[in-house]
């Protein structure tokens, strides 16, 4: 009861136990590890976009705080992009110069096309 808890001793005991494992148990452990690795790789292959983000932004290793900032910035970015696209769309709609120049140079007088 008075024995003191020593992490080193626990570690040594675990190592000793590991060396005493029989071959079938070790084989099962290897198999389980192999399956886990395959599953992990399959998950990453299924979502290349997330893999790209992880690779280029280091997002996978960020803290919760940084993740929140990331998402706020991402939402702002998307909002800005949508606004920008809407403006450009409007600007494109407003560009009537092709038709205007054709009307202004047409051999028919303008009043033919104008409701009086």
């Amino acid at each position, binding site marked *: 009861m008075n024995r003191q808890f020593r992490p080193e001793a626990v570690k040594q005991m675990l190592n000793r136990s590991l060396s005493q494992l029989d071959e079938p148990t070790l084989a099962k452990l290897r198999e389980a590890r192999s399956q886990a690795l395959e599953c992990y790789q399959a998950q990453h292959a299924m979502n290349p976009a997330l893999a790209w983000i992880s690779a280029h932004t280091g997002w996978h290793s960020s803290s919760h705080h940084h993740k929140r900032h990331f998402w706020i910035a991402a939402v702002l970015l998307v909002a800005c992009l949508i*606004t920008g696209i809407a403006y450009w769309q409007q600007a494109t709609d407003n*560009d009537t110069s092709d038709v205007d120049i054709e009307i202004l140079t*047409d051999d028919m007088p303008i009043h033919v096309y104008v409701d009086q």
Partner: protein
Amino acid sequence: MRIRLLQYLAAFAVTMALAPAALAAVKPWATLTPTQKEALSPLAGQWDTLPELQQHRLLGVAKKYPKLTPEQKERVHKRLEAWSKLTPEQRDRAREKYKAFKKVPPDTREQVKEMVRQQEAEKAASGVPAAPAPH
């Protein structure tokens, strides 16, 4: 690296959002280029009073002006003032009519044009203004 990438993307998005607004702002006559002034010279006196959208559209016309033939340039100058005096609704309707007329078969279009030419000639002969200025 993550923050820098996001900063660049955010700056790009803000630029995209603000640039068209800047383009749509009113441009005083004094700030136009010599080429734009030459193209829009019939409107020099009233340019500063025109709405933003109309200025923006007329600048689009001015951009294409240098590529026109001398005859087309003269025609644009003759018509520009009357065109700018139309209401926005009249101009929109005229654009629609013009687009619709372009879809008419060429031979029918020629017949209509010939008819209009005859009417104009008759009006000119009878002393009626050939192309009444629309209001």
